[in-house]
């Protein structure tokens, strides 16, 4: 019986239920209610975010597909297209870290190959609570193993990403997974269900009871007791997905199908209704024909199951056998379970009876859209005031402490668990500013980076949004790539809280502004609300995934110093900005202050200058300054060089020494070049209106930084390396 309790259990408000009754002209049965609860969930419908997402720029001359499809598509020339997207799998990864993260990888990969692209890049943005707590350690261990278990097996390189640690993720880790594939521009597939009478095929793994209510689960706050939610998490089978990937690409290479859609969140429900909705048609399926893993499943369970590694295909009427032959070659089921119909309805049969008969439009298009109330949070005022604090007495020690802070430190412990070289395209091992993947036979490469500093966004959401875009683009410039497209994953607390909505709106405004100035289109992404546990929300965490193009592989530049005696040039300006820095957080234990400010026009000039200098062959190495400031940036350049080359930098700025060493002012890049290029570089900078300062030289075996006549830092490279490299492995060492 459908009563108030049942409606509430389906995460629908009484008003939403009334609207459903009005739209379909009767009370829904339980299966139909389940369908609405999934498709009208925040996760599937974007009902609270839709209005705000419209502010993001989505146009661009190379955009083949913007938001609204499984993934965004950008024309990259040579008849090729890059198909990419980022998605969150936060809630499942908290409840069951291994499977949550693994199925996150599986889900995003299906989004890519559904469109006819072979995936070539995986990246992850991970956020965990401090590793001093055993629970966070076990979550991180599980998440990393899950990503590694799935990505390695299916044979797509996981080439980096980023990892941050903050208390706010203790009971709400974030797992954002990015994937990119390459397709031939004229062989892209969409989620279409055209042509009444065309058969609907179910392909891939069998349906079980796993993952029921996954999307609904992702649309509510969590409490402490989560054990009972574990069955809601799907279980991944990368081997099955590998077969599915190969079979789908083989089918797509021939002219056999009309449309294809993966069964991700909301499974059969989502794939049937979305395909029909996009083509203005209907779909009729018979659940008795669906391959099933367990006996006695109800229509409700089958329609809501989120079993992994399944796809729905609308085939051309006379080509079904060929499709089935290819799937049989890969030992996969491909079963006709229904057909496309006219009239825009979803009809589902079970045991000879019609158990669902709904207008597709009501499920997809007529879902309510909310403009939730928004209000600036009260913490902002007190957070902006940085209490007074004194400069450290021993800068060497402070520097080593910062290098060993898990957010700054070397993430090799994570990365070497990922196969980052399969497919033989990886130019840069993870650790560079951006991952660089060459395009075979084209003398070009793609670069990808994920970025998002949530502390900045917490303190000033709009600035945080701008910086996330700017820093990602700066990372691309450092490796020699120009940005060509953006995907974003917006991780926030509950949209029903006005303060969260305010953070969300502000952050989007910042992202939109930056994308407009850098002239890069947003081609889609994902919103993850309800990142709250026990009423506490995470810091607002927009993660930007930006794809860049290296137009000539000779330009590919790395962060590590190249040779002794190269000159060190600082592009951009040091400012006395300490708010929101890793230094303030780690050393002075405050999450406060005004985050670094950013002038987007200046940022653009800095990036363009860096790219131009690289393309002129003037740059030996380039690295952007971010968490940990100039000092940590120089340490990384040194530790990523062959032979662990030291550096000596002399600065003339007149400001607090801690701000000079560890401040995180934006729009700064450290490059090195040959002595003979000094004049040309400095002249070019002047012409381009960019500040560039010769600050020292590479060489020796120490990291030395002085301010005017005072030596601030003098540390052995080996000691810095130990602090930086050992921090995370030491935490996980089996004692």
């Amino acid at each position, binding site marked *: 019986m459908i009563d108030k309790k049942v409606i509430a259990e389906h995460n629908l408000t009484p008003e939403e239920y009334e609207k459903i009754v009005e739209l379909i002209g009767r009370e829904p049965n339980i299966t139909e209610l389940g369908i609405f609860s999934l498709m009208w969930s925040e996760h599937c419908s974007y009902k609270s975010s839709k209005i705000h997402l419209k502010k993001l720029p989505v146009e661009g001359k190379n955009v083949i597909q913007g938001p609204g499809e499984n993934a965004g598509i950008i024309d990259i020339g040579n008849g090729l297209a890059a198909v990419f997207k980022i998605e969150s799998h936060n809630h499942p990864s908290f409840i069951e870290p291994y499977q949550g993260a693994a199925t996150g990888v599986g889900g995003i990969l299906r989004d890519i190959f559904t469109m006819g692209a072979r995936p070539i890049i995986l990246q992850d943005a991970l956020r965990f609570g401090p590793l001093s707590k055993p629970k966070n350690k076990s979550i991180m261990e599980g998440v990393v193993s899950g990503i*590694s*278990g799935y990505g*390695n*097996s*299916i*044979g797509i390189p996981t080439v980096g990403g980023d990892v941050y640690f903050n208390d706010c993720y203790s009971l709400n880790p974030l797992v954002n997974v990015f994937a990119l594939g390459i397709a031939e521009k004229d062989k892209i597939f969409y989620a279409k269900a055209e042509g009444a009478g065309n058969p609907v095929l179910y392909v891939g793994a069998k349906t079980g009871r796993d993952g029921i209510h996954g999307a609904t689960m992702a649309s509510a706050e969590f409490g402490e007791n989560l054990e009972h939610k574990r069955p809601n998490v799907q279980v991944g*089978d*990368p*081997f*099955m997905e*590998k*077969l599915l990937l190969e079979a789908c690409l083989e089918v797509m290479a021939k002219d056999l199908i009309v449309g294809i859609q993966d069964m991700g969140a909301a499974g059969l429900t989502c794939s049937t209704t979305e395909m029909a909705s996009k083509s203005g048609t209907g779909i009729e399926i018979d659940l008795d024909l669906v391959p099933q893993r367990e006996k006695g499943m109800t229509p409700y369970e089958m329609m809501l199951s989120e079993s992994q590694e399944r796809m729905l295909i609308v085939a051309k009427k006379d080509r079904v056998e060929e499709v089935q032959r290819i799937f049989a*070659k*890969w*030992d996969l089921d491909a079963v006709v379970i229904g057909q496309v119909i006219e009239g825009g309805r979803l009809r589902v049969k079970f045991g000879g009876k019609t158990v669902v008969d709904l207008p597709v439009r009501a499920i997809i298009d007529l879902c309510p859209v909310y403009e939730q109330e928004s209000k600036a949070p009260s913490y902002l005022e007190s957070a902006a005031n940085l209490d007074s604090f004194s400069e450290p007495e021993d800068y060497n020690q402070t520097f080593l402490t910062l290098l060993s802070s898990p957010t700054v430190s070397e993430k090799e412990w994570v*990365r*070497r*668990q*990922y*196969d*980052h*070289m*399969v*497919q*033989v*395209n*990886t*130019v840069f*091992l993870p650790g560079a500013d951006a991952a660089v993947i*060459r395009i*075979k*036979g084209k003398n070009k490469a793609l670069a990808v980076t994920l970025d998002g500093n949530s502390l900045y966004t917490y303190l000033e959401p709009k600035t945080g949004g701008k910086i996330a875009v700017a820093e990602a683009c700066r990372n691309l410039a450092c490796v020699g790539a120009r940005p060509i497209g953006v995907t974003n994953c917006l991780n926030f607390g509950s949209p029903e809280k006005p303060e969260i909505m305010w953070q969300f709106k502000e952050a989007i405004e910042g992202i939109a502004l930056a994308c407009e100035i850098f002239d890069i289109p947003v081609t889609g992404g994902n919103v993850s609300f309800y990142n709250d546990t026990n009423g506490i929300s995470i810091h607002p965490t927009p993660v930007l995934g930006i794809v860049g193009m290296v137009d000539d*592989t000779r330009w590919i530049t790395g962060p590590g110093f190249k040779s002794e005696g190269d000159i060190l040039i600082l592009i951009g300006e040091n400012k006395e900005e300490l708010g929101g820095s890793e230094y303030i957080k780690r050393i002075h234990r405050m999450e406060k202050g005004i985050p670094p400010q950013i002038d987007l026009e200046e940022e653009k000039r800095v990036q363009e200058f860096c790219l131009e200098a690289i393309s002129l062959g003037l740059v030996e190495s380039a690295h952007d300054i971010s968490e940990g400031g100039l000092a940590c940036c120089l340490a990384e350049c040194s530790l990523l060089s062959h032979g662990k080359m030291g550096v000596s930098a002399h600065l003339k700025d007149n400001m607090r020494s801690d701000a000079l060493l560890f401040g995180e002012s934006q729009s700064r890049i450290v490059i090195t070049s040959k002595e003979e290029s000094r004049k040309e570089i400095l002249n070019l900078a002047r012409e381009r209106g960019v500040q560039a300062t010769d600050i020292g030289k590479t060489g020796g075996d120490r990291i030395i930084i002085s301010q005017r006549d005072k030596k601030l830092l003098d540390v052995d490279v080996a000691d810095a390396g130990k602090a930086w490299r050992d921090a995370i492995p030491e935490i996980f060492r089996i004692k």
Partner: protein
Amino acid sequence: MKFGVVIFPGSNCDHDTLYVLKDIFKQDAAFLWHKEHDLKNVDCIILPGGFSYGDYLRSGSIAAFSPLMQEVKEFALRGGFVLGICNGFQVLLELGLLPGAMLRNKNLKFLCQYVHLRVDNTDTPFTSTAKRGQVLRIPIAHYDGNYYSPPETIQEVKKNNQIVLRYSDARGRLSDEANVNGSLECIAGLINKAGNVMGMMPHPERASEALLGSEDGRIIFESLIKSLG
């Protein structure tokens, strides 16, 4: 046809290996499908890396029962050249063409990283262009690469000079630290007694182009090409 690269369900270095053979070394090469019985008249068979059958049950164990493996076994017994890379090495162990087995890496984690390998036997078709003691820098990527075999087997292996590649440091010295996965005798590459079947955990196809960071893997392919004439 010179080279055949076998595809098992779950192979994922099949395309990489074919690409390197065809595009880098300009060799005749084709895929061989695991369900068939056709070796397409090739002179050398490569079992590529990956996760055949998802590594379920045990790495390489199910692939060893693929229809094509019967032919591969006969081909090897007739003296044909067979190279197993990573998962391919594991399949060769399961087929019994090479002695021993693989345990999980000693740190119980998947390891993807560059390692140094010392070439201890150059009297093979797979290493004939290397110098004895030469150190190669080639990446590994595996979970189960910790080689093991019983004492009497390892005695036999050593006596017959079957250890071709050993994990070492950059200067060719053996140590626990350099032996990243914990393999017995630091074994990274092993050949059969007859000298025509080799298995190696490192991926030479990933170290065949300067752009990708190392060209040391070329030695394996160049030796093979030379041996095939």
